[in-house]
């Protein structure tokens, strides 16, 4: 196995890393950049806990080989909001109590971001379709749907302001 150097943009910053061919994106983020927001849970692309945005599209970080992000723009949940501010989606999740243990939350938040970027005012069906690949063992699904709708209203108010 030979390591190779990849260069990509991570949360707005140009970075490089040495990766082995078998490393996946979650391993890369956790071991080389100390980013723990994308978590591996099932390791089979079934639960959505490891969701990462690559060139704006959500991928399962556990199945996405690290070398694939060479030249790409990678965004994790840590990129949302500012130093002392939260993203409207994060605010909405807190205000709606859209989690219990919070393990799955980064994945849901990134999928919700992805949904709202394509459908700023999503219907219930669109929300469920987008979030059907994310599992929440605490089953905070009704609250998550409320949170996505609240985030849509917050975004709309932000655009109007």
């Amino acid at each position: 196995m030979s390591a190779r150097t990849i260069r990509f943009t991570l949360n707005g910053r140009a970075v490089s890393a040495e990766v082995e061919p078998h490393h996946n994106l979650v391993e890369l983020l956790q071991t080389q950049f100390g980013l723990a927001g994308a978590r591996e849970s099932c390791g089979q692309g079934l639960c959505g806990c490891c969701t990462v945005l690559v060139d704006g599209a959500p991928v399962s970080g556990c199945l996405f080989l690290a070398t694939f992000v060479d030249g790409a723009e990678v965004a994790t949940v840590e990129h949302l909001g500012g130093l002392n501010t939260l993203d409207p989606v994060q605010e909405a999740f807190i205000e709606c109590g859209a989690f219990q243990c919070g393990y799955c939350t980064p994945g849901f938040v990134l999928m919700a971001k992805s949904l709202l970027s394509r459908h700023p005012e999503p219907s219930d069906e669109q929300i469920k379709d987008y979030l059907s690949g994310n599992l929440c063992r605490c089953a905070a699904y009704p609250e998550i749907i409320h949170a996505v709708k609240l985030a849509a209203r917050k975004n709309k108010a932000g655009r109007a302001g």
Partner: protein
Amino acid sequence: MTPNATPFWMVAGAGAEVEIDTETGHLSVLRLVNAADVGTPINPTIVETQLSGAALMQLGFTLFEKMHIDRGQVTNASLADYKIPGIHDVPPAVENVAVDAYQSNGPFGAKGVGELGTFGVSPAIANAIEDAVGVRLTELPLTPEAVFRALRAKADKPLGDEQ
């Protein structure tokens, strides 16, 4: 036991409305109502989330979660083979009622809520099935196959692979 513990009785109930396709045994839960005595809710939003989440987790145990064990080895130990509820499994109507009360030995009248929402879900759905199609299922999960087998047995036409 630490003197700071608050022993208490957990009292909860649930009601369910179901729709059953008698040709396939397929079962849909249309409405799930959960009620629990939670003492005095300190954070009502979180109490409701606890009741709802517990009930939906129990909905998974009730309808489809089953560990297959072969000589001590779980053979469906992945989320592909052991399905847990996803967002499409949430019934169209889920209502949660925190019955306000006062727990005299609890902090600010509160008591634990934790898994209270799990208590009534399985029997409520089994009762709803019996009410709808007249078959009594006594083993979880209440799968379409179990419903269908029971319907056939009731009609005196049990499936060929049954005794």
